[in-house]
């Protein structure tokens, strides 16, 4: 397991997704699996930065775990929290500026990962937990 903690700065988003990609690299994921994980992590971290801490400063915690080929990533902020999680997860729903945000972040996380769970409490923060099973590469199946 790897734990990372970094400041809620938008420039740290690229670091977070690169770290997640490097973490699963030993499983020899496909290009698509790598892209899915990078994108989902980017969504969760971006949300922590712009919504959780409302572009102010705070710490974002990221935890990466592997159980066999099951990858789990946990992204946590101690920011403002979400009032209605179900509503927030609806595609196109956004509390951001309508002309700048599409409200698709959670929909992307749900589509690109196998499992998505959101825990949040108003005033104390939000945790996003995502899972993805990284398929076995074909060559290694043949080698067995």
């Amino acid at each position, binding site marked *: 397991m790897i734990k990372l903690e970094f400041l809620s700065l938008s*420039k740290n988003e690229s670091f977070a997704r690169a770290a997640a990609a490097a973490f699963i690299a030993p499983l020899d994921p496909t290009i698509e699996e790598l*892209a899915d994980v*990078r994108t989902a992590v*980017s*969504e969760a971290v971006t949300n922590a930065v712009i919504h959780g801490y409302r572009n102010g400063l705070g710490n974002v915690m990221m935890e990466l775990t592997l159980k066999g080929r099951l990858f789990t990533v946990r992204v946590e902020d101690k920011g403002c929290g979400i009032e209605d999680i179900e509503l927030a997860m609806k595609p196109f729903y956004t509390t951001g500026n309508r*002309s700048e*945000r*599409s409200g*698709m972040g959670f929909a992307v996380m749900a589509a690109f990962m196998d499992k998505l769970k959101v825990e949040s409490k108003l005033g104390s923060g939000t945790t996003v937990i995502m899972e993805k099973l990284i398929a076995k590469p074909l060559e290694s199946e043949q080698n067995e």
Partner: protein
Amino acid sequence: MQITFKKRGSTLTALLEGELDQHCASELRSAIDTAVRSEGNIEILLLDLGRVSFMDSSGIGVILGRYKLMRKLGGELAIANAQPQVEKLLKLSGVYALLDAKRREKASE
């Protein structure tokens, strides 16, 4: 993220290069809007995504915003050369459906 603009007739092409996320979104947004407005008479804004190696929903927001701007100005937005990761995101988020609907609308006029 780097942007290069090319104008040919009434088409303005913005060639984007790099990773498109929240970090560069607002800079990108204002660079494109400034170019569109200062060139004048742009009918088509073409976003060439061939060199975009990564994009998330912040990029979708930038694209939808430019779509709205072009509609307001009476023009159109087009997208070209998206890599598979970007393509998957554009499909999922309904951007292609939106651009296609607009095209069909035009054809039936």
